[in-house]
């Protein structure tokens, strides 16, 4: 655990990890559950996006090498091979070396040998594929654009291209999905032997088509069913050799996504592209979620214009708890106390004690972790953490 402690303590030092996220905002159509910012691609739109991304990267004050890169979206795979190459060039110029990990999200339908070759050559190490389900009927129900055959062809190509880590994204608690059907999906994923599996419980986000259906009563929520699905997933993946390291993420040893871990530990990352969030140089915030508006701002030399907050040690400590408790490694409370002695630790300790008393959390030396039961309540725990930070009196 001392490794984690030092990582957190030195988050802002010259050797601290630094992430780079690029939001590629293009999708062919909108999935029913999607709340991400994305838009239909046009030739001009893509060209402008690439140019503005390079321009935005030039606005950033790069003080140390980037350690992890993540391209998400949207669907980065929507970009043509030569556009991927241009984007990779922007990243390489700014990285100051070879990043330890470079992930690209690819929809199965967009996986071609040409694109894979470009990505491999650029230094991409990890491919994350949005499979969602192996059940054709459920894929349809989600408004997804790929078939089972496409999934397998895509997976084989990615494997053949020799990326060192491959992730499959799955979704559960889909409308009408039974426990047996979901177990079959997990088995199907495991059978393909990816290095990493993410399992997302379908969430009803405002401004999605699914939310509309829910509010019209066409889809019903069943929390008890969701609990069973969560528990079943965790058991099934553990038995298959995938260790859980966060609420929704599982990996074979050495394959946890470092970029995401970096954000949950409240280290720094730079986000490029419309809607991308950044936490860097003393500020947290996001770019505007609109391709045109983002370009206008970048042209004026402005970025991270939305939801800007100044990062304080107390805010970082609070969020390190909220997000760190979602991870199986937990949080090194002593390290954060050392970094931010003025936070209301008495209230926090009181809360952690109560969580431990009720077997929602465990405490090993300076490190607090949630139990399985506690992890299923991570939002309530998070709300309590916020309350402790806002209500608690600072320790004298």
């Amino acid at each position, binding site marked *: 655990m001392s490794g984690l402690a030092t990582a957190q303590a030195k988050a802002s030092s010259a050797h601290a990890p630094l992430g780079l996220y690029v939001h590629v905002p293009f999708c062919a159509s909108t999935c029913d559950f999607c709340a991400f910012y994305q838009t239909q691609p046009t030739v001009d739109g893509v060209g402008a996006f690439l140019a503005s991304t390079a321009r935005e990267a030039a606005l950033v004050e790069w003080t140390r090498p980037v350690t992890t890169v993540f391209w998400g979206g949207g669907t980065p795979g929507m970009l043509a091979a030569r556009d991927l190459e241009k984007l990779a060039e922007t990243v390489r110029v700014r990285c100051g070396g070879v990043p330890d990990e470079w992930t690209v999200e690819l929809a199965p339908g967009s996986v071609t040998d040409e694109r894979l070759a470009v990505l491999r050559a650029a230094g991409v190490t990890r491919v994350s594929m949005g499979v969602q389900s192996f059940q054709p009927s459920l894929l349809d129900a989600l408004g997804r654009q790929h078939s089972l055959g496409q999934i397998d062809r895509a997976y084989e190509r990615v494997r053949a291209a020799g990326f060192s880590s491959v992730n499959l994204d799955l979704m559960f608690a889909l409308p009408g999905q039974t426990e047996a059907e979901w177990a079959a999906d997990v088995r199907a994923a495991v059978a393909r032997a990816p290095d990493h599996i993410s399992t997302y419980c379908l969430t009803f986000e405002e401004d999605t088509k699914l939310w509309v259906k829910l509010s019209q009563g066409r889809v019903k929520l069943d929390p008890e069913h969701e609990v069973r699905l969560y528990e079943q997933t965790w058991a099934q993946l553990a038995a298959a050799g995938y260790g859980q390291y966060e609420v*929704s993420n599982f990996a074979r040893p050495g394959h946890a996504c470092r970029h995401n871990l970096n954000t949950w530990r409240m280290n720094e990352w730079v986000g490029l592209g419309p*809607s991308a*969030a950044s936490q860097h140089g003393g500020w*947290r915030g996001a770019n505007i979620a609109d391709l045109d508006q983002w370009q206008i701002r970048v042209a004026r030399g402005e970025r991270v214009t939305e939801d800007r907050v100044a990062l304080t040690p107390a805010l970082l400590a609070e969020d390190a708890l909220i997000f760190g408790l979602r991870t199986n490694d937990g949080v090194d409370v002593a390290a954060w106390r050392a970094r931010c002695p003025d936070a209301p630790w008495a209230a926090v300790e009181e809360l952690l004690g109560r969580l431990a008393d009720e077997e929602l959390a465990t405490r090993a030396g300076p490190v607090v972790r949630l139990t399985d039961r506690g992890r299923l309540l991570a939002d309530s725990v998070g709300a309590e953490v916020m309350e402790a930070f806002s209500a608690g009196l600072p320790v004298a």
Partner: protein
Amino acid sequence: MSANYTRNFCIIAHVDHGKTTLSDRLLEYTNTVSMRVMTAQHLDSMDLERERGITIKSHPVTMTYRAKDGHDYKLNLMDTPGHVDFSYEVSRSLAACEGAVLLIDAAQGVEAQTVANAHLAFSQKLKVIPVINKIDLPSANLELCTRQLEDILTIPAEEAILASGKSGIGIVDILEAVVARVPPPRWQEYPQTRCLVFDSLYDSYRGCIAYVRIFSGSIKAGDMMMLMSTGQKAEVKEVGVFMPKMEKIAALGAGDVGYIVSSIKTPADVKTGDTITIASKPATEMLPGYKEVRPLVFCGLYPLESDDYEKLKAALGRLRLNDAAFVYASESSLALGFGFRCGFLGLLHMEIIQERIRREHDVEIISTYPSVIYHVIKHGGDLIEVDNPVNMPDPGTMIEIREPTIRAQIILPNESMGDILSLIMEKRGVCDHTDTLDMNRVMLKCSLPLNEILVDFNDRLKSITHGYGSMDYELGDYMAADLVKMDIMINGDPVDAFSCIVHRSNADNRGRSLCEKLAEIIPPQMFKVAIQAAIGGKIIARDNVKEMRKDVTSKCYGGDISRKRKLLDKQKEGKKKMKQIGKVSIPPDAFIKVLQNN
């Protein structure tokens, strides 16, 4: 116009038998209110009164009617509150009259409130004019109604007038009967001025306005008046009559109904039932029937947000200005913080006040379990009154607890008899009279502890009888009973707001159902929450709030951090809308919900 051409009367009826509709017809016929300004149900002016179809404030009105004998008569109609909670107010309104029009819904027949009101009228020696109303209804049963008049109320059937307020049938007959049968104003010959206060109103500009019936003498602006219950003197600023709006006149004389504005600014000083006389030539005897009204039902009212304490205090003060029967005093609760102990005439009165606080004064409130006033006899013989279960003394220090009882008359369909008798028994009542009213209905007379009918008795009576049952009651004696104080504890902390006094034989049941109900009402919690009922520290029932099983956002990557924080903030705000008891968030309506159908 001599007082001999004045008639003072009221209309009494069971709720919904058509009193307001008929009053409106009378006003219309006598051109007291022109058709144009006439809104339906002119006399029920408060929103809440209109919505609930009940009358809370008196709405007297003076009409002029040219009778068939050729004379112009001054008819003063007193609209009276009908509900049992306000029976003292009713009795004062009746005392201001010489006659009463008793309405019976032709389709419903005599009901509990009909009987109670008729008896009130008889005891005030009023001339009762029976009117069978709503005869336009196809289901009207005149034969049944006339028989009930004779059998139940001992009123000769041939006196009954057939009417329909809706279709305007029988309006003239009623007016003629009022002129012919109601005697002229009584006690005119008394040598000094005597005015009965039957209600009052607070006006922020003019102070207290007393509603009065002048029995003898006269009163005018400039007179020095005196309130006989206290001897308090005040200058009369203005007198007038109700047309139905207040209209200033030079003087009020014997037989008149009107209002007096004086220099009195404190509403509590003008008490319903008091007698006003002229200070320089005072009467020696008060008009009969004056009583200090005393609240029967008490509960704590607390602001949901403690910041609203001052706002609640102001609201209570303003409500009290127009409602002398409502009392309050500050108190504090461990669970609920600072609030007020409030006293009401009955449950309806309590509901109305709570509703008005929420609606007219926009304060969200929490109400504690209602309580009656218990008499506790201490060792050594001292009697103390307890209106809050929290203050019940230690059982070791007392000889016995006495509780108030009521005498109730309940009218119900024959087929509900068995269920109602079990309900009465469950509520610790004793039934001592059963009268057959007609082929389908019986009237029960019974004694019940007041405490037992507070919460849900009426609702259950209505539901068992499918709405056909009705009840009325008057206060009975205090009786000793084996009562104990039950505390409710949440995670081991007693929540005083839920404390109640129960009969020992009911304690286990009541404790269990309260715990169950709370466990159901409190939303699932992350931390374990135990709910216990205890008597004298001994746990008699327990339950657990449901455990929260899942509350986690599945996908949470770097870009989501701000959004996630907003989400949690919302969750935190949501909690603020709840009452925090220790670490447990209780929805504010929990306090009311536990009261319902125990």
